[in-house]
């Protein structure tokens, strides 16, 4: 029985508006980088692959079959893991359980999305169906509208301001210019963010992340194998996954994501760590308000003080808890199925000391918070070097 599971290799494509290649080629790029990162593993060393994608964006039916074929992973088992934007975190959880149960030793978790495969209208239509299609979509409830409703409630309850929301974008745009794989390579000033057009009040254009194309890959291994593969394994020490009502009518609060609170509780308990023990974090900033709620849901500050945390620049490098120093979803881009894997890659590089210009000095513990849709699925994973 393998008690400990490590990430032994990570890879990611650049996140772009339109990648210009097929999904098999996109996944190959991330897979190749992760396999090389894992000390030049070959496909025969991989015991199973978990492909992570939100399939309503795919033209290919059952893409796991095609991708496993293209990556040379036949005849090993492969299948799709889906939890919308949290798909690759869920894939990681499944991979970890395979290894801990001794069913497999080495598992590849490959997340991807080619969102440019759909027209803008097709993409909107799918996003519209991300809420309860019986009782909410019929009124025109888009993904940003839900987060705008969370933002309005948060502002009313805690006095959070539009300027504080904009500051989250300012931070993410600063760090995305230091990440060559990020989609946006230009810093956005506070003034520009605040003057951008309103999409759905109070959220403006720069409060929203952008659809992207991209793939991510991580190689997971049990302790014995991991130590043979690499001198710098990054251990998964805490795992939390929770769900919440899809319909807003079923939620007790709309200024917090209960699935994130519960997933965080589970992960901290398993890792035997407290929020103050985390040195660097990746949170699911699909909208600026989502990052503010994540600060509070994860206990990085008290409830209602998320706006103050960004005002005080405590989530910048050098602050108390650096968050999304790779640009986050807001500025790095958000290819749904690939996002969790990209967040994990960032934390793995940080804990190895390989994060270059955005290295958080002495980072030994890291956390990844990845949310599915409008807060249906919440995943929190804690890592240690």
């Amino acid at each position, binding site marked *: 029985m393998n008690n400990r599971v490590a990430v032994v290799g990570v890879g990611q494509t650049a996140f772009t508006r339109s990648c210009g290649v097929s999904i098999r080629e996109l996944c190959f790029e991330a897979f190749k980088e992760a396999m090389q990162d894992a000390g030049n593993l070959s496909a025969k060393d991989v015991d199973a692959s978990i492909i992570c994608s939100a399939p309503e964006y795919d033209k290919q039916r059952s893409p796991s079959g095609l991708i496993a074929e293209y990556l040379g992973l036949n005849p090993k088992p492969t299948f799709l893991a889906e939890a919308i934007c949290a798909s690759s975190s869920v894939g990681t959880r499944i991979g970890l359980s395979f290894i801990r149960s001794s069913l497999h030793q080495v598992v590849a978790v490959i997340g991807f999305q080619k969102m440019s495969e759909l027209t803008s*209208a097709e993409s*909107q*239509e799918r*996003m*519209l*169906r991300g809420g309860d*299609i*019986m*009782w*909410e*979509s*019929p*009124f*025109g*409830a*888009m993904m*940003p*509208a839900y987060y*705008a*409703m*969370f*933002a*309005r*409630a948060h502002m*009313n309850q805690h006095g959070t301001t539009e300027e504080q929301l904009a500051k989250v974008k300012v931070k993410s745009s600063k760090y995305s210019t230091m990440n060559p794989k990020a989609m946006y390579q230009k810093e956005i000033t506070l003034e520009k963010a605040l003057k951008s*057009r*309103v*999409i*759905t*009040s*109070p*959220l403006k254009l720069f409060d929203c992340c952008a659809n992207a194309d991209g793939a991510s890959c991580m190689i997971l291994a049990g302790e014995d194998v991991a130590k043979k593969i690499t001198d710098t394994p990054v251990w998964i020490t805490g795992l939390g996954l929770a769900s919440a009502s899809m*319909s*807003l*009518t*079923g939620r007790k609060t*709309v200024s917090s994501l209960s699935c994130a609170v519960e997933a965080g509780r589970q992960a901290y308990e398993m890792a035997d760590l407290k929020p103050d023990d985390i040195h660097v974090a990746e949170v699911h900033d699909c909208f600026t308000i989502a990052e503010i709620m994540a600060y509070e849901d994860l206990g990085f500050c008290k409830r209602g003080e998320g706006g103050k945390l960004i005002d005080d620049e405590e989530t910048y490098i050098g602050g108390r808890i650096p968050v999304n120093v790779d640009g986050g979803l807001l500025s790095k881009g958000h290819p749904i199925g690939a996002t969790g894997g990209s967040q994990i890659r960032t934390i793995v590089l940080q804990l190895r000391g390989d994060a270059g210009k955005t290295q958080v000095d002495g980072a030994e513990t890291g956390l990844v918070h990845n949310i599915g849709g409008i807060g249906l699925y919440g995943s929190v994973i804690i890592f240690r070097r």
Partner: protein
Amino acid sequence: MGFEKFGEVSYITETKVADFVKHLEEGEIAATKCKACGKLFFPPRANCIDCLSNDVEWIPLSGRGKLITYTTAYFAPAGFEAPYTLALAELEEGVRVFTRLSKDVKEDEIELGMNMRLVPVRLAGERITYELRKA
């Protein structure tokens, strides 16, 4: 069948609670109540979440409630026309509703916690919905 008339655009035609639309056409916003354990459901459910009973009855709601949160969308997906305001309200029976806020309420008049009234509204093409108005 029957549920396809509900809302601005419908995605579902068949449901055990399709009679909700009939009640709406009669001017009534109805919830379901579990006959076995008494739990009230809105949006209506055909199956009790607590005791798993399939035996539910229709109960009219007062429509009185308070605004919890809202957003005005200035960008609409295909099939919808912006701007429109989406809102979440808590009704006095303790259940919540997600719907549109009436266009008669101007954005600068909206305050969270304000008293609201949920009313049936007929739309073009024999469609029907409900919306929140200022009480």
